[in-house]
């Protein structure tokens, strides 16, 4: 309850400062519309925004899912064959250091202007933090427990199911949390570069029309999407990861 009150208070202060800036600096609507104008733009265009939100959600969620699945598979392979890490990590670093805004046009050339190129953009943004966190989980496996499983003659499938996956769960959720908000950013960047649908497209097309109120409304919706992703994962983390482990 106290937490909710703090959030509401924070939003209220932010809106107050925003409105004060407009009044004090006498800013025109095309530079900074008032909170009321943004809300009005949201209300008038909600069907359009909803349509584009669905597209961005699909792209970012798919990219997020693929990136994390690949990370888990790679981390599991590295758990059994540690030498592969030396091969994978440099590639992951190269992917990470490439500015996504620079390679997004290439992805559109390679994968077309449709949804798939945006899914790949989103996936590339999520991949590195997800891999690093999942790998950390694999490296932190309890050596004693590993020996214990060895003593009982466990096979690889049992080891993954009974030990590795439950052990890396806290790290896995950290990876999911970090990549959840990044996935939305990745999809938006892809849409900025070449698309005729999605929230990124809506932002860029309204920016050209100087419809700043709608741009801000769309930005707010994409933020809400990222935050929702994060909190859905947080909810599942609380459900599946032990309280004692969360408090460490």
């Amino acid at each position, binding site marked *: 309850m106290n937490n909710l009150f703090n959030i509401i208070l924070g939003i209220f202060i932010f809106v107050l400062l925003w409105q004060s800036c407009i009044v004090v600096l006498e800013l025109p609507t095309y530079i900074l519309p008032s909170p009321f104008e943004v809300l009005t733009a949201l209300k008038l265009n909600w069907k359009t925004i909803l349509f584009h939100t669905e597209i961005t959600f699909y792209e970012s969620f798919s990219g997020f899912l693929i990136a994390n699945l690949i990370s888990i598979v790679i981390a599991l392979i590295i758990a059994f064959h540690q030498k592969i890490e030396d091969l994978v990590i440099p590639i992951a670093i190269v992917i990470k250091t490439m500015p996504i805004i620079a390679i997004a046009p290439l992805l559109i050339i390679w994968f077309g202007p449709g949804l798939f190129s945006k899914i790949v953009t989103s996936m590339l943004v999520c991949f590195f933090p997800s891999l690093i966190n999942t790998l950390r989980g694999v490296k932190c496996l309890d050596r*004693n427990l590993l020996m214990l499983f060895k003593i009982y*003659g466990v096979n690889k499938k049992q080891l993954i199911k009974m030990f590795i996956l439950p052990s890396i769960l806290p790290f896995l959720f950290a990876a999911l949390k970090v990549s959840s908000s990044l996935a939305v950013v990745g999809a938006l960047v892809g849409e900025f570069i070449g698309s005729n649908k999605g929230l990124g497209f809506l932002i860029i097309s309204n920016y050209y029309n100087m419809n700043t109120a709608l741009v801000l409304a769309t930005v707010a919706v994409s933020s809400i999407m990222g935050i929702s992703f994060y909190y859905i994962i947080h909810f599942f983390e609380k459900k599946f990861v032990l309280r004692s482990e969360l408090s460490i």
Partner: protein
Amino acid sequence: MKLIEVNSVTKEYARGFYALKNLTFSVEEGSFVSIVGPFGCGKTTILNLLGGITEDYIGNIKIRKESPAKARKTRKIGYVFQKPALLPWRNVIRNITLPLEISGIEKYEKAYDLLKIVKLEYAAKKMPHELSRGMQQLICIARSLILDPDVLLLDEPFCSIDEINRGKMQNRLLEIHKQTNKTTLLVTHSLNEAVYLSDQIIILTSRPAKVKRIIDIDFQERNEKVFFSEKFLNYLKIIKAELSNE
């Protein structure tokens, strides 16, 4: 009958860095044997070799006429580590049944019998973090017995437990040994613990470890009075004298 036979075993970790050199000893079936020695002399290495965890060594080790690796595969070995090795996301009973699940054996009721032996029936549904360290180790001992192994290997199981509770745990361990009659090999730094619990004590030299002396311990009965007996103090004196030269 000799259950464990260790003959001229040498273990080299790095080139010229020996943990064990020409180690030879044997353990009678059903006996309780403790291994004591200076810090870092290779006591845990011996347990790892017997447990089949470390497989590269020179020499000959047999557990009921089988190599440790084979004995491990045929589940003749129960192992308890220094630190309680429990899965934090499983409750007590599911931790005990873990070896059964791995082996595909569905005799889960045996876990409740073992909980009775370690006197922790009430903790069946508790999570490991709800138990004290001593209790966690007792759960580990119960788990190590679930596949009915021939040998129980204990690597300083009570090393981080306070003196009073340690005494209780030692008594509990004696009772478990009495009830199950499992051949038990205990590595410990506590000479009191070794003398109190064991039928035989193997004293090792400093690294690379060799057997310095084997002492047979003989008490009519084991209870707290034993600690104050002349016999107990004599055993301690002998062991301390052997170790002080190392």
